């Protein structure tokens, strides 16, 4: 019985990609992909997506642990606040970042006054925008796992004399590994595809802020074929990343 809706669901995901494939001229693919602008966009995309995934892990893991374990009043409200970037249209997210970190934004003004630097139009702005939209994916998958697992093992470890940091390192973290794996993959994929917040907040300039999705949009303006080819490249990169990381993340601890 489950097969029918499952097949429909799969078709919904796969068929549009097939549509993309039928429209693309595969013979032109190599020549389009080795163009300097494509290569530069690919490199920039991989670098910024990797950096923002690291940022997601460094900031998101502690946040997920606090959200799942803390009993501070108002924590439930905070849990929903973390989901905001999922609901906000990315362009609005980009505007919000611009109003915060732009030259006239209150934090941006402070940064400009202290360092003389400007955040928008820099590669750092791309990483910030990607981290903003990708972080919830990591936090949500970790938090779910943490709450599902409960804190039994941690309390037992504590009664056996382990200090909080040891408990975190030796008990919490290993329990979290599968969820961390899928969270990392999800946030990397989301960062890789990020478009709206980036173009609004960081702008679009080759080698600095023009990631692969922005290059696709740019190409679609003049030559749809080459936009399709670049989009295929984006899909291939995403599939490779997911295929490499996902099974290991899911099976990692069980084996």
């Amino acid at each position: 019985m489950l097969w029918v809706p499952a097949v429909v669901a799969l078709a919904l995901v796969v068929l549009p990609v097939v549509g993309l494939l039928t429209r693309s001229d595969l013979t032109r693919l190599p020549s389009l992909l080795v163009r300097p602008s494509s290569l530069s966009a690919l490199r920039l995309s991989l670098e910024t997506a990797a950096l923002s995934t690291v940022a997601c892990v460094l900031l998101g893991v502690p946040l997920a642990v606090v959200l799942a374990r803390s009993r501070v009043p108002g924590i439930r409200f905070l849990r929903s606040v973390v989901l905001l970037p999922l609901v906000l249209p990315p362009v609005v997210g980009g505007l919000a970042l611009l109003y915060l970190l732009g030259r006239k934004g209150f934090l941006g003004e402070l940064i400009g006054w202290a360092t003389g630097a400007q955040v928008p139009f820099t590669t750092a702005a791309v990483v910030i925008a990607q981290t903003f939209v990708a972080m919830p994916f990591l936090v949500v998958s970790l938090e779910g796992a943490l709450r599902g697992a409960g804190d039994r093992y941690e309390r037992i470890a504590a009664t056996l004399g382990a200090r909080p940091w040891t408990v975190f390192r030796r008990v919490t973290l290993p329990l979290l590994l599968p969820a961390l794996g899928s969270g990392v993959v999800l946030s990397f994929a989301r960062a890789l595809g990020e478009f709206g917040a980036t173009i609004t907040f960081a702008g679009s300039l080759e080698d600095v802020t023009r990631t692969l999705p922005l290059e696709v949009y740019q190409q679609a303006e003049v030559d749809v074929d080459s936009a399709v080819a670049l989009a295929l490249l984006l899909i291939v990169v995403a599939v490779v990343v997911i295929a490499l990381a996902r099974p290991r993340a899911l099976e990692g601890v069980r084996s």
Partner: protein
Amino acid sequence: MKLTGARNLVAAVAAVALVTTACSSSDKASSNPGGQGTAPAPGGTLTVFAAASLTESFGVLGKQFEAKHPGVTVKFDFEGSSALVQKLTNGAKADVFASADQANMDKATKAQVIDGQPVVFATNKLTIAVGKGDPKGIKAFVDLAKSGTTVVVCAPQVPCGAATKKIEQSTGVSIKPASEEQDVKQVLAKVASGDADAGLVYVTDAASAAGKVDKVDFPEAAGAINNYPLGVVKNAPQAALAKEFAEFVRGPEGRAELGKVGFGTP
């Protein structure tokens, strides 16, 4: 289940009836335009695909056209010209297409989605948008190349960017932009937010954001005038109305409204 479905249908029909009567009763019957003896104009929806930069002027013209043609509703899709061409070539139903440049109209005619010969109805040129009060003291096009000035332009692939490139080449001034935006409204937004010191936009866009940015006109802009062609879509569901709309835009009312927001009218 069945009952609510039926009830919904009744409600929908009633709502449609209400709306249509409300429309026709509120419209003042006016004298026939052009004196072509058009029989009681057939009602219906005229769908106009128009470049984003026409949002303000066409919005007003649509209302005026509706007032002249009781029972007719004008529906707009304002987007980048190339996105609109993309839609048309993929079979989107529309009656009129107004492009912000010749290149995109040529694409549409080449794809055989336009009926007959498109006509240029407006021209536009670039100006420099700067922050309120021009804090960086930008007075001429050459000032955009000064170091320490954050300049934002359109990407060369879109019409405003092509015009920018053309002026750069003719003046020998090379701008080092902080960003190449995908459309002119994005350039304007970045100047208005204060993140860019200056941006190259169309005079009409600067006029629509007059409260947020100042503009610095420069004589070299005359070297890159942008033409706005308009054509009737092939197999348009409302072909007769579409032709009337095209004439209306080029007529006195159309020219007045377009002129008001800064377009040149040939």
